[in-house]
């Protein structure tokens, strides 16, 4: 197993050597988006500089090179998720796009009717709530919500009570973007499958930190975003189980997703192209493959250990501060949310920013979760391959200084 050389990793990220407000950048907002290593920057530049052409339709050499690169990127994603076939990998614009895709096609298929239920958790990001609310409005189905304990973990007995034969969809976050809760997804997916529900996991916060095996998870849909796993923005993935996707109607209509178009009738293309209308984000897909290759060259296990050590260090250092409250369970991953007694999260975040430290403050697109914990928001520090123990020490010192200025 390669040793985790964080200095060598940092050196691959040009943006990390910049300053903000005259201070070195300490970037701890990785749950919002991750920075890009040279391997990804180079892949993007090489695409536009050497092989850019429209794909799937051309006969000329560049279009063949671009097509091959795009489809090899699809294969890379399939291998990364251990999907049985690349036909189950649909490129989208991101996690939000992927979840909207599933909700929309289930709506068009009239898969749900009054009396049916969609089961979500109280941890969910708005992108894994609103598309389902919209589907409920269209179909007459209702939303059920798995409650969350005070430590940010899901109430499993409540979940088992909520899963019934009326449950048609279980849509769940793999790792919570606000609290870092790692959900026991295998147990939850198995129960949903047994009840006859379709299952979807929001993997936006999981793919950057854990190995994902969609066959082992036995999940029907898995969504994630490229930009959170060191790839460009504007590219994401929906993994969809073939035998389910093949029965569902198309989403967006247009070029690429068709076989034949005429005014007397149009036939649709096979999977996965049926769900990729128009010219895709070719550079994004290639950048995503480069990012996945990069993360695998580091090794997801050493990466995970490195990040877990940082999170534990941050939790310990911050807990030592007066009036500090941590949210989420102690085995959290990816993110750490906290608040300080009597201090507004916006104020703390602003002062941390003045010290060069980038964290996220506010509701983290999880307003229902914030309401459940009776806060308007939290401060969230989130970690990636290039963060260091020195940065965590700086974070704790900066929080202490900011708190003294605000009290």
């Amino acid at each position, binding site marked *: 197993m390669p040793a985790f050389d964080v200095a060598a990793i940092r050196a691959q990220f040009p943006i990390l050597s910049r300053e903000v407000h005259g201070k070195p950048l300490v970037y701890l907002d990785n749950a919002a988006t991750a920075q890009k290593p040279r391997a990804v920057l180079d892949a993007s530049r090489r695409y536009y500089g050497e092989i850019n052409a429209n794909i799937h339709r051309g006969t000329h050499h560049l279009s063949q090179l671009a097509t091959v690169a795009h489809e090899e990127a699809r294969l890379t994603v399939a291998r990364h998720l251990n999907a049985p076939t690349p036909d189950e990998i649909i490129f989208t614009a991101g996690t939000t796009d992927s979840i909207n895709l599933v909700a929309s096609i289930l709506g068009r298929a009239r898969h749900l009717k009054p009396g049916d239920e969609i089961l979500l958790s109280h941890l969910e990001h708005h992108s894994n709530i609103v598309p389902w609310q919209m589907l409920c409005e269209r179909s007459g189905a209702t939303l059920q919500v798995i409650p969350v304990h005070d430590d940010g973990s899901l109430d499993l007995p409540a979940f088992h009570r909520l899963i019934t034969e009326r449950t048609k969809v279980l849509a769940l976050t793999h790792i919570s973007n606000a609290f870092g809760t790692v959900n026991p997804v295998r147990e939850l997916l198995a129960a949903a499958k047994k009840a006859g529900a379709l299952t979807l996991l929001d993997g936006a916060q999981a793919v950057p930190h854990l190995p994902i095996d969609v066959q082992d998870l036995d999940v029907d849909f898995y969504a994630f975003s490229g930009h959170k796993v060191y790839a460009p923005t504007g590219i994401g993935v929906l993994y969809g189980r073939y035998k389910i996707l093949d029965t569902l109607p198309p989403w967006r209509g247009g070029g690429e997703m068709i076989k034949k178009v005429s005014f007397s009738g149009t036939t649709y293309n096979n999977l996965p192209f049926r769900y990729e209308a128009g010219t895709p984000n070719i550079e994004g897909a290639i950048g995503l493959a480069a990012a996945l290759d990069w993360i695998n060259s580091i090794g997801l296990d050493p990466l995970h250990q490195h990040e877990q050590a940082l999170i534990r260090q941050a939790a310990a250092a911050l807990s030592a501060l007066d009036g500090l409250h941590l949210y989420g369970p102690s085995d959290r991953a990816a993110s750490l949310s906290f608040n300080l007694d009597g201090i*507004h999260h*916006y*104020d703390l975040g602003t002062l941390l920013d003045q010290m060069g430290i980038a964290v996220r403050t*506010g*509701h983290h697109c999880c307003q229902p979760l914030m309401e459940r914990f009776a806060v*308007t928001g939290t401060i969230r520090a989130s970690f990636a391959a290039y963060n260091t123990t020195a940065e965590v020490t700086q974070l704790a010192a900066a929080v202490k200084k900011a708190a003294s*200025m*605000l009290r």
Partner: protein
Amino acid sequence: MTIAETQQQLLEELSLFQDWTERYEYVIGLGKHLAPMPGELQTRDRLIEGCQSQVWLDASCPAGKMHYLADSDSLITKGMIALFVRVLDGQTPDDVLTADMSFIDQTGLKEHLAPTRANALNLMATQMKQRALEFAGK
């Protein structure tokens, strides 16, 4: 003092601060000393909603001069509010409407007024003028 004179005085005070700690301690101090808004005035219709912090604004026009009461759950936002109130409070509605608020650009505090959806403060100056419009020409 006219609005322009108040702005000039403010800029002179702020220029004394050498670094960010001093500047923010000043703003935080303003926030701590801002007269609190009575609870019964912190109603939904007075709320300027933003993602990052909540801001309430009340405006009245006793004896032809604008009187603003404002509050926020964020201390730094309260400090920024205090700056706005200092500039516009006690002025006629017409003077408020024609006030040039670009002095903010020179305060070193402009990032709190960035036009992102997160920022209720960005709407503050506009809202204060809007309220003045209701009283103008009366």
